[in-house]
């Protein structure tokens, strides 16, 4: 168990380092950063000044290690646009993105798991097929378009929910639903196939032979085993949802981390772009780590060996 943990940690560190390199290399793609920052109207002199001011005149390798070293100490640089430490910008916007992500995950799990169980208990019937078909249909919905349609329907025509911003809790409902949509099909299929396998297993036959109630057989004995991969995948899905929240944040005008990333990309604010990419990657890496740990914790076969 300890060896497994150490191996996982080492992997996480290596992946983080690679992502660091990639996100640094990314911003050097355009060639001369100084020209991009200075904008189209800048003179040669402006560009030179900017180059000096941002330390872009140093060799790339020096800039890289300087950045990695700073990032390792938690200093992600300063925004060109806001003239503020990037870490502060991210910290200020994190609650919105996290609330959105968790709302989405909650909606996704509370929809996908019951439906998955329901379909599994009617495996092979028309109901089962129809439910799975709905999953495919949901998957085909472009999330930004779904967001707009929900805004028109529930925000404008029915007037039930706010159409942008998160001044109160209900501002998270529509974006949460849209975000959940992307995760529901995968979680639903996983729940269903896990339950189908579990319900056909020998230990369920034993549970029935013991005369347990149907509720106990399905909810205690089968679900407990089917839920293990679902919980693990849910953690990973949360990672995808957070990094995918950029689209939804822009549709609903939520000023979260994704929105910050989008804004800084369109305004050539490279330190922020670098930092947001790194930040989302690290969150994802931590979530996969968490997922492995959850799996090991939930599965007694892994926990006790």
């Amino acid at each position, binding site marked *: 168990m300890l060896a497994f943990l150490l191996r996982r940690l080492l*992997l996480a560190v*290596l*992946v*983080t380092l*690679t*992502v660091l390199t*990639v*996100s640094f290399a*990314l*911003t050097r*793609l*355009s060639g001369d950063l100084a020209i*991009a920052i200075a904008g189209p109207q800048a003179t040669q002199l402006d560009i030179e000044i900017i180059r000096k001011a941002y330390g872009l005149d140093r060799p790339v390798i020096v800039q890289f290690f300087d950045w990695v070293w700073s990032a390792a100490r938690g200093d992600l640089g300063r925004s060109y646009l806001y003239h503020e430490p990037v870490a502060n910008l991210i910290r200020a916007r994190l609650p919105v993105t996290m609330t959105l992500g968790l709302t989405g995950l909650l909606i996704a799990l509370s929809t996908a798991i019951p439906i998955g169980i329901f379909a599994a208990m009617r495996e092979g019937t*028309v109901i089962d*097929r*129809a439910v799975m*078909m709905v999953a*495919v*249909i949901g*998957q*085909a*919905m*472009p*999330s*930004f*378009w779904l967001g*707009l*349609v929900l805004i*028109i329907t529930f925000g*404008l025509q029915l007037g039930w929910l706010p159409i942008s911003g998160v001044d109160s809790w209900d501002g998270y409902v529509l974006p949460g639903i849209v975000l959940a949509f992307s995760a529901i099909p995968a979680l639903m*299929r996983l729940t269903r196939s896990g339950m189908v396998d579990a319900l056909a297993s020998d230990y369920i036959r034993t549970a029935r032979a013991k005369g347990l109630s149907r509720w106990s057989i399905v909810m205690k004995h089968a679900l407990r085993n089917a839920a293990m991969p679902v919980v693990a995948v849910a953690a990973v899905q949360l990672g995808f949802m957070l*990094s*995918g929240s*950029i*689209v939804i944040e*822009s549709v609903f005008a939520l000023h979260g981390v*994704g929105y910050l*990333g*989008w804004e800084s*990309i*369109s305004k*050539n604010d490279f330190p922020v*772009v670098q930092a*947001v*990419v790194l930040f*989302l*990657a690290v969150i*994802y*890496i931590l979530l*996969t780590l968490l997922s492995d740990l959850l799996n090991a914790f939930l599965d007694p076969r892994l926990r006790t060996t």
Partner: protein
Amino acid sequence: MSIRKIAASIGAVIVLGVLLMAIFAPLLVPHDPFAQDLNLRLVPPSFMEGGRSDHFLGTDQLGRDYFSRLIYGSRISMLIGLATVITSGLIGVTLGMLGGFIGGRVDMVVMFIITCRLSIPLILVALAVVSLIGSSLTVVVMTLGLLLWERFAVVTRTTVMQVRTLDYVAAAWAAGCSRTHILLREVLPNIVHHLVVVATLEMAIAILLEAALSFLGLGVPPPLPSWGLMISEAKDYMFFSPWVIMVPGVSLFVLVLGINFLGDGLRDMLGATRDA
């Protein structure tokens, strides 16, 4: 006929239809999709109140014929979908074969690369790349191709590992065939059905991603009629003319649904898996 077979047939019809639409777009369009007519802005579709018979799906905010733009937009979606699948397929299958067939250290490296790729926030990085290099159709295709290979890699790796241990591969080894021969002649043909299914899934994802990038303003540049861009340009008018986002949105949805139905049908037919 079962519900799944019906769905698969519907999917095939949709995909074929959109493909034909893309190929014969210049012959099908009633108007020049780029021609603006500022006197005829936001005309509703002909079947709605205030519609005009010469603009079947109405016009956009610049008075361009929506139906014509929709037809030309199918070219972008199909092109993005196919080109991305080819690029990402080449990368993913190569990596997956290396990892699955050689194994050992090489496999560890392949797994590491896949893990790194999964950690990178997809949309953000795609946006950044397009923004830095400059938006064009080629850049979008290349970016998506370079980012969307991981499912190909995972499925190839897993299936190659399964096939590698089968008797006919062992027989080929015993017969003294070369590694390359075994990989290309014995292994590849036996995993190709899995790859076809992955390809449909990736195509759907690529089309949705292009639309999302274009929607965010960092995908296909205007005035190209990408469906995502059409939604983006129309969203300021959607409160008064909801159909401006419904037309391209429903088209995207139907195309992606068709591809997914087709993929599911192929999976059932070929006995392949699409889950990584």
